[in-house]
């Protein structure tokens, strides 16, 4: 993502070349060469989680407001899109997506209001209220899930105009497009005055206020923007990835998972959100392969889950101690070691 800024020089750089290659591969090669398993179980969840992590990163990494309620906004997005689709006949999918994100943003702003009075832990605890309240409301009121007894919703077929996205490859392309567009828009926002305000509020709220950063607007924008992105990620999670979701799937563990992605990937780094999401998706798969190879049958699913918890938890601690800037910092360092730096790297 850092590459976008550098194209301002007008000359195509090695980085824009790489990004170009990346896009060509992601669109031109992966959907055709990837197996359904790879697309469905690895790449699509990776994209969706990366988008959610980008959303949380706007709030936590850039604006410095810790949230433990991300899964609630995933759920709001998913259920809002489902209901809009169900109750507004003929609503175009993209509009549905944007409206669902908008509803998530509105709810995010409501739950962000306490941030005007609260700091740090007190705020983190108050975002838990969003987590519990949303999950409860979705289970309790049948209206949200069209009176399904356990709150389960089935996603409609993704269709834009006459094009429908049904196969694994098509749903991957759909997610990819949404994620790329929204990430670029987020990047623009972060590079604007608002984005700089976020960082000012994060680094020193009082100082930011003194130099004239509008705290109210900045914080609510961060909450709204973040919830919008997470809400859209929720729609993708429900419509493009799982296609059948229930409120219990959006529990506190999911919120923590997204928080872990940005800690491991790198706080205040959009590229970090992607690396972190890739890690969180691939790591359990790798661990189960390695565990099964080393320990054989002793390594059942229970042991797998527990060792996964232990390793992820330990990694969080190790990263916070050894490299608070996350995997992305390791990546950048490795990258600059491989090739001589022509320009100083600007972390994004």
């Amino acid at each position, binding site marked *: 993502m850092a590459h976008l800024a550098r194209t301002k020089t007008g000359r195509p750089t090695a980085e824009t070349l790489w990004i170009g290659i990346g896009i060509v591969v992601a669109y031109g090669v992966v959907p055709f060469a990837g197996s359904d398993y790879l697309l469905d179980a690895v790449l699509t969840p990776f994209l969706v989680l990366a988008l959610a992590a980008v959303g949380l990163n706007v709030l936590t990494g850039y604006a410095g407001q810790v949230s433990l309620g991300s899964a609630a906004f995933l759920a709001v997005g998913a259920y809002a899109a489902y209901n809009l689709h169900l109750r507004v006949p003929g609503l175009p999918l993209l509009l549905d997506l944007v409206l669902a994100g908008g509803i998530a943003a509105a709810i995010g702003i409501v739950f962000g209001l306490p941030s005007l*009075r609260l700091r*740090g*832990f007190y705020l983190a605890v108050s975002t838990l209220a969003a987590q*519990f309240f949303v999950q409860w409301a979705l289970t309790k009121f049948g209206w949200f899930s069209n009176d399904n007894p356990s709150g389960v919703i089935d996603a409609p077929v993704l269709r834009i105009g006459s094009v429908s996205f049904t196969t694994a490859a098509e749903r991957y392309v759909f997610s990819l497009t949404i994620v790329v567009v929204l990430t670029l828009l987020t990047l623009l926002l972060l590079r604007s005055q608002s984005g700089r305000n976020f960082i000012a509020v994060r680094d020193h709220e009082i100082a930011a206020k003194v130099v004239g950063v509008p705290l109210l607007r900045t914080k609510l924008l961060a909450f709204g923007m973040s919830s919008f992105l997470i809400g859209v990620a929720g729609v993708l999670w429900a419509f493009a990835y799982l296609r059948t979701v229930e409120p219990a799937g959006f529990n506190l563990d999911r919120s*923590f998972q997204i928080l872990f992605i940005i800690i491991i990937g790198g706080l205040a780094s959009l590229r970090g959100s992607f690396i972190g999401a890739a890690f969180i998706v691939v790591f359990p798969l790798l661990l189960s392969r390695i565990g099964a190879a080393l320990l054989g049958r002793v390594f059942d699913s*229970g042991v797998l889950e527990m060792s996964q918890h232990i390793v992820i*938890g330990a*990694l*969080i601690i190790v990263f916070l101690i050894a490299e608070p800037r996350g995997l992305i910092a390791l990546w950048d360092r490795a990258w600059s070691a491989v090739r001589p730096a022509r320009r100083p790297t600007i972390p994004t």
Partner: protein
Amino acid sequence: MFDYQFLIEVLIGGLLSGVMYSLVAIGFVLIYKTSGVLNFAQGAMLLFAALTFVSLVERGTPFVAALAATLAIMIALGIAVERTVLRPLVNQPPITLFMATLGLSYVIEGAAQLLWGTQVHGLDIGISDTPFEVAGVLISRLDLFAAAVAGGLVALFALFFRYTRTGLSFRAVADDQFAALAVGLRLPRVWGAVWAVAGIVALVGGLLWGARLGVQFSLSLVVLKALPVLVLGGFDSIAGAIVGGLLVGAIEKLAEVYVGPFFGGGIEVWAAYVVALGFLLIRPSGLFGQKLVERV
């Protein structure tokens, strides 16, 4: 006619279950007060303690020996946490430390269940969870016992903080870390001791909660019940943890019984959070919490 007796019964039930929340919250307060860390892993420590104790008893260890062994393990765990997690993170922003304890809670939960298995264990501490009647009001024996234990624990802490060298050094560190350093207190040692004490509190809480819910994974979720307690009472006040616990317990039960039916029930999970949140807007540092003074 309004049923006052029922109201009193609900209220007492709520207050007593609130004491159980206080037991968890006290563990948080101890650590927060002395080291400024909100220890999310307190729930995991509770689970770890209860699971270790139950597994030892089930393997034929006598009650007292199992208690002593678990106590020793919890103290060792506390000291190990200080060495491996807190010491390298000294002087980091509080929110970083919080996230580290989030990771820690995953490690402890995973380790506890990897070691002792994930099945539900019954825990019998010799107090039955049956209610008895006082003046027409039903009261649970276990609740009453828990309240007595909590009371005893708080009294013990009061004495400990007043008369022992370690207790005094805890207070000194809580008051002013730099001054404590200047008079020669060893901060890492004090922190290690605080985590060990928090481990002991976790053991007490774990046994009581385990006796009620059975010893299983969901035990670590009581941490989520303790958070609104902390918000109400303030993160750095033991008295706040007790009062907050009582308030949260009472609010939860009253809300569930009198407000719940309008929403179809189940509001217990978030009622406390909403009340705590509303309260925070008026007093951002809780009932007894220290006011934050910020300078540029």
